[in-house]
């Protein structure tokens, strides 16, 4: 069954995000840094009256941290906390069929953890990811 996916570029890589995991897509304003927080946590930002924790997904995916200029983010809610995951670009929103990620692809640890399946976008394969896996300090199992 086709589900709605967001196609975005996160940490320089095109990925598909299940729209069910996404509350909204916003532009983040001022970010308050969090001293001593682990890599991947950029800081806190206010989204109207909510405080969201801003996440740079590069760390969780095992990539070098981005000094990206984008302030666009997808908001997801995990265990009653709201997180804003920074994305470089948002490409598309469309329904796709997920196909099983067959074995034999040598994904790095971070990607392995985050990957869910493959979707076919204009006949090029895109990895669909689990946003939860990008958030530090949260157990993967829902």
């Amino acid at each position: 069954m086709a589900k709605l996916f967001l196609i975005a570029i996160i940490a320089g890589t095109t990925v598909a995000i299940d729209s069910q995991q996404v509350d909204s897509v916003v532009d983040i304003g001022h970010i308050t840094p969090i001293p001593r927080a682990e890599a991947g946590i950029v800081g806190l930002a206010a989204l109207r009256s909510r405080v969201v924790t801003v996440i740079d997904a590069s760390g969780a995916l095992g990539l070098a941290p981005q000094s990206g200029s984008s302030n666009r983010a997808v908001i997801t809610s995990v265990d009653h906390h709201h997180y804003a995951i920074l994305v470089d670009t948002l490409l598309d929103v469309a329904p796709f069929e997920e196909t099983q990620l067959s074995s034999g692809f040598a994904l790095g640890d971070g990607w392995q953890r985050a990957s869910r399946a493959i979707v076919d976008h204009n006949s090029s394969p895109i990895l669909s990811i689990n946003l939860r896996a990008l958030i530090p300090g949260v157990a993967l199992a829902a």
Partner: protein
Amino acid sequence: MDDLLQEFIAETRETLEALAGGIVMWEANPSDRTRLDAIFRFVHTVKGSCGFLDLPRLLRLSHAAEDTLAAVRSGARKPDTRTVNAVLAIVDRIGEIIEAIDIGVSLDDRSEDLLIAALAEGADSAVAQASGISIQRAPTRSIRLSVALLDRMMSGMSDMVLARNELARHLRDHGAEPSVEAALERLSLTVADMRDTVTQTRMQKIDALFSVLPRMVRDTAAELNKAVALSVEGANVELDREMIEMMRDPLVHMIRNAIDHGLESSVDRIAAGKNPVGNLSVVARQLGNQIIIEIQDDGRGIDVDRLIINLAASSGQSEAALRMLPEQAQLDLIFHPGLSSKDNVTTISGRGVGMDVVRANIEQLGGRIDLRNTPGRGLCIAIHVPLTLSIIPTIIVGVSGQRFALSRPSIEEIVRVRGDAIRIDALGDTMVATIRKRRFPLLSLAKLLGLPSSDEPPATLVVVTVTGGSFALAVDEVLDTEELVIKPAPPAVMATGLFAGQTLPDTGLPMLLLDAAGLASAGGLRFNSEARAPAGDEKVSEGTPSQTMLIFRDIDGAKRLAPLATIERVEPVDRADIQFTAGQWRLSVDAMIIPLATVLDDVARYFAGDETRLSVLRIADGQTQIAYLITEAIDIVELTDAMIAGRGTGPIAGVATIDGEQVEIIDVHWVFARYADGCRSDTAAPVLLLAGESTTWMESFLRPVLENAGYRVRTALRAGEHPSVTLAMDSDTLSIADATPVIRLRHAVHMSANAGETIFRYDRAALLQALDQCRAGERAG
């Protein structure tokens, strides 16, 4: 009390509804332990609440049912159908009484004896019938809402505040017509008002929990014939309403336990060499991401030996095995279901039962209970509950350009580094700050947080208290004080161990709340909590007696000193809050009116000048307080030299030398005697009884006069009170037995010929004189 009653009714009703299914199940299977426990908890809770709501009928019923159920729980009694029926009849009756209380009708209580008698073992099965009066259920005046809905309301409210701020900013930048500004002003007021209201729907001061304690402690202590002094601290912390509700029963239960089982009778206390009055203190504080409520008594503590013997006897566990347990585990046996370390059962806290219930309640909240037992010296029960949502008074500190909040109750003082009173030294590889001869470990907030810091000596130190000790925290600046709504931060942020939560102040920029204990441990500080002296022993000081004094600039320009211990706080006040009313200058502050004392006699002239920077010292003597008007507070000093007493009486007690300068010390005693309201102690004042037909007139016209003259005015005597004089009209017939003097007042200006001695009711001088004579006569007698 009405609020409490409403809450009690709503809660009991709700539990009854939830219990309805359970009752049927228990009826079908009387040996079902979970159902039994649920019903037992219900009657136990009802019993507990009735105690302080003064509902004797419910108390009697629930106590009787609890007895029976306790016997069933302990296995002493078989839960046969008759017992079940009798208990259920009582539960039903409790429901009926609750409904009756709610709509304010009285319910026939004749059959209640029968209900209770039916509980007795082997009683006749002729169970008393339900009262048969069908009571129309009153429409409830409170409703229950889901927390999610309240949360949405709260966040909608914060959105509104932020939108308003933005609008105000735009208007300011672009200029606006006066009419638009007026509209914005009105909007601001409404928004602020709304915000308070919305916040109230979710938050409540913990005072709501604590305000019933004095009455409850007094009643409980009276019932047990014990003398108990209660002290309550931290009532200002605001907590999630949900949390407060859940804490109510456990708190009440533990306090009853403390008075019943913990504190000894006066006789026993004297024999043990203690103060005959038992001390009970209840303290709420916020520590990191927890709220801690400590209930401390100085009674006999838990007798672990007896606990083990009782438990071995009642549960069939081997005594030897229990004795093998580590000390803390032995102490935790107090939470074992159905157990008491006290042998006799009283109406107050039953059989120490309920400690299991209490623990279950607290654990349900995600909290825990710590016990600190000192046999013979007392017990401290600390209830830890997680901070879900709370409003905490904070100060906001700036460091390396970033802002953080620190919980104000954890802050001892804030000092600027200047002058000789404060030194900063290197001690090995660590730093130490010396503030007025007290040494504190010094931590740099910037370094703890890994923020860029300069090598210059810190400008401002915040002395922070954590369990076991204090330390000085170097910050760049102290920016503001604010009451903030604190929410828990996500796990990855909490994992740093440095933060207690996050908040969104009106600036719209998120901010983190620092966790004082986390900072201390990140800084490698280890305080030995054992070394902390118990409260009360702290006043024993060594060496030359010294007194800590506040130096301030008085309104006549002179520097003066006041003892720091008497000063509650120094705060700026608004000129508009000071008014000359009822014969003296008074200050309205915190919804109270307190007298304003000054060194000048002619304050009016001082106020006539356009002095805008006004500050007051809030001085308290434990019962009443006054405000002393000053220009500014300067410093705090240790006064070791003797004071040279002044001549005569007046606002100045004497003079001392501070750095070679003569500085006057104000006479707090004189200031209080002159300015304080109600200097007389309330219990020592003689009682004056207003009697007869015209008490209403006397109440409204005479009461202030009489209270000014130092009487406690009563229209009805309370238990144990004896009037030293009675006031009545000449036409009243009184039935006063004793030789109480009676002063009679008359309506007519002139005394009629044949009447006894009377006083014209508007002749104040004569009345006061007559009262004086009565008092003089009393003293002579």
